[in-house]
């Protein structure tokens, strides 16, 4: 609980993940045989070096956000999105800007000043700005540089029946679960990779999979929970509280049926509630891992997140526990030789 709170409250927009990386490095150094980073910023934590098979488990550290691209003469900051941002969630959200975490808010023309037709349309990024409470461009330039990242500012709380609300659940939940896995001993070579720049095109995982060259890749993710108003149950991707979601296909990756069945069987054997992720769009790091070298068999286990890509995502702590149990079960089963990597396709 403490770890997921710390991880979600840390800042790490794509390309600027050092806050999350530093936290994880500090947390995991006591457990690692080797811990290192690469030129793009991935964090590698290795255990069981030299054992077989070699398994890479990846969770991306980055979150979506904004970037400062210019200044208005009155000191407001012009911004663009980084990653798959729903621009409709932006207005009036508190943010921090740059490495010094300058506080601000995403502003827009107040409703009183909007013309009737303007009120009917969601605000676009060009109509939004970040207000850091200064009066001039010169003052703003003392605090912020062009290219500085803007991240949502939100603290993480428990709500309702065993739920957690906060920002960046996608994918600090995966990071937290992967950190817990690192603390367990498995009879295999484990490289836990906390990847960067997933939200802008699986870029960290592309480099990491090449570096690690594993026999098998497992990705831990946060995914859309769409059991909400206005969505027919035929269109649910996953359900909050329904347990970990296993992917059979997304826009970056088709899971080998054998691997999906292997994970489903483990869930059934361990009596872990699970669901299949019923959306075939959006990508994950598995898209990059499965395409590395001459091809690497891979799988994705994700945790349902409501209001994903917003500063107020909701997860179920029961899903968290069950996702951890399933991921652990999968690694144990692989260590015991349960997954034959021959003829996997």
């Amino acid at each position: 609980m403490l770890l997921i709170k710390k991880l979600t409250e840390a800042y790490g927009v794509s390309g600027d993940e050092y806050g999350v990386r530093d936290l994880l490095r500090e947390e995991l150094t006591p457990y690692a045989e080797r811990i290192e980073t690469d030129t793009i910023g991935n964090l590698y934590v290795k255990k069981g070096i030299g054992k077989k098979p070699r398994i890479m488990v990846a969770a991306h550290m980055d979150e979506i956000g904004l970037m400062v691209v210019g200044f208005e003469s009155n000191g407001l900051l012009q911004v663009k999105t980084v990653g798959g941002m729903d621009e409709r969630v932006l207005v009036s959200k508190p943010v921090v800007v740059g490495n010094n975490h300058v506080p601000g808010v995403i502003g827009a023309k107040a409703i009183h000043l909007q013309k009737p037709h303007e009120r009917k349309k969601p605000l676009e990024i060009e109509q939004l700005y970040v207000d850091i409470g200064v009066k001039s461009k010169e003052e703003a330039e003392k605090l912020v540089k062009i290219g500085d990242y803007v991240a949502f500012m939100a603290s993480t709380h428990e709500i309702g029946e065993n739920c957690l609300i906060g920002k960046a659940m996608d994918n600090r939940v995966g990071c937290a679960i992967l950190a817990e896995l690192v603390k367990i001993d498995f009879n295999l070579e484990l490289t836990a990779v906390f990847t960067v720049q997933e939200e802008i095109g699986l870029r960290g995982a592309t480099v990491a999979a090449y570096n690690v060259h594993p026999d098998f890749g497992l990705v831990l993710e946060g995914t859309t929970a769409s059991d909400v108003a206005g969505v027919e149950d035929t269109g649910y991707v996953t359900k909050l509280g329904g347990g970990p979601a296993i992917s059979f296909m997304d826009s970056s990756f088709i899971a080998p049926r054998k691997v999906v069945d292997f994970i489903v069987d483990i869930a059934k054997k361990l009596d872990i509630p699970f669901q299949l992720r019923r959306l075939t769009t959006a990508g994950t790091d598995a898209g990059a891992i499965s395409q590395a070298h001459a091809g690497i068999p891979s799988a994705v286990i994700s945790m349902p997140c409501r209001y994903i890509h917003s500063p107020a995502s909701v997860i179920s702590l029961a899903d968290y526990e069950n996702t951890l149990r399933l991921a652990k079960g999968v690694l144990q089963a692989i260590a015991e030789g349960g997954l034959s990597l021959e003829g996997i396709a």
Partner: protein
Amino acid sequence: MKELLKKLSETYGPAGREDKIRQVIQDEVKNYVDEVFTDPMGNLYAVKKGKGTKIMVAAHMDEIGIIVTYIDKHGFLRFSNVGGVSPQILLGQRVTFGNGVVGSIGVEKLDDIKKLTLEKLYLDIGAKNKAEAEKLVKIGDIATYDREATVMGTRMIGKAMDNRAGCAVVIQALRELKETENEIYAVFTTQEEVGLRGSRTSSYRINPDLGLAVDVTLVGDTPEPPQLNVALGKGAAIKVKDASVICHPKIKAMLSELAAKHSIPVQLEVMTAGGTDAGAIHLTRKGVPSGVISVPCRYVHTPVEMVDLEDMANASRLLTAFLSSPVKMQEAFPCALD
């Protein structure tokens, strides 16, 4: 080639589920090559050993399909697309899962046909309820068009001509290929329809000197057609470019010269959209000079794709000539950076 293409066309093999088509192709090629093997992405490699230039020839064996995402309490299935499947074409089709289960594509009540989307369609496999449906099909299972291939004159009509026509061309060339100093890696690739995925990993593995893809291409010879130069029955097409690759000018020239030398009818193909395995191959490692031989095809990504068997014979002759020709890499492809 007629019987071969009919067999390949009718075999089940959507992207990510190429087991059956891989087995059929393996049986067709194994007696004509030195080695066959597969890899984690499911690609099938057929190798003719040699000491000369290492040439990779890729023909993707996957086809488009639909993937089950949901089973409702009445036993109806909802699905998403695997590759470029359009709801307009799917409506009213019969599809198969490759395990004997077939189904009809139905549509919810629509007040306007323009509102037809994949979400409005469902698949009916004759099950009376969810439990019955789940005995036949699992979420994540993939179906393809269910369609026999028929010959009309020199033309064949059926599903998955994209790209079983290309597979047949490569198989035919492997059978006809005489002794050559080149080392030939024919790869029947997977998951081309979802993003050139099999060719990306197989070309990394092979690390070839030259790459050649064999795939179908669109035509501009039908009523009110798009502006395309390629026509059915006018010969094999030599690709100039598409959205995934600008073919290496030297390979293009080599193919054109061989066609002239052997009197093989060819046409030049310029596509503004679409992609093929050469898109992945030419960007492998330090870059691989790559080209494409295309088979003209009408009605691509429908169950009534049409190819001309003479175009395929010509494509196969051109491919055989290319694979037989010694290539002096240093002369033909001097590295500009050296």
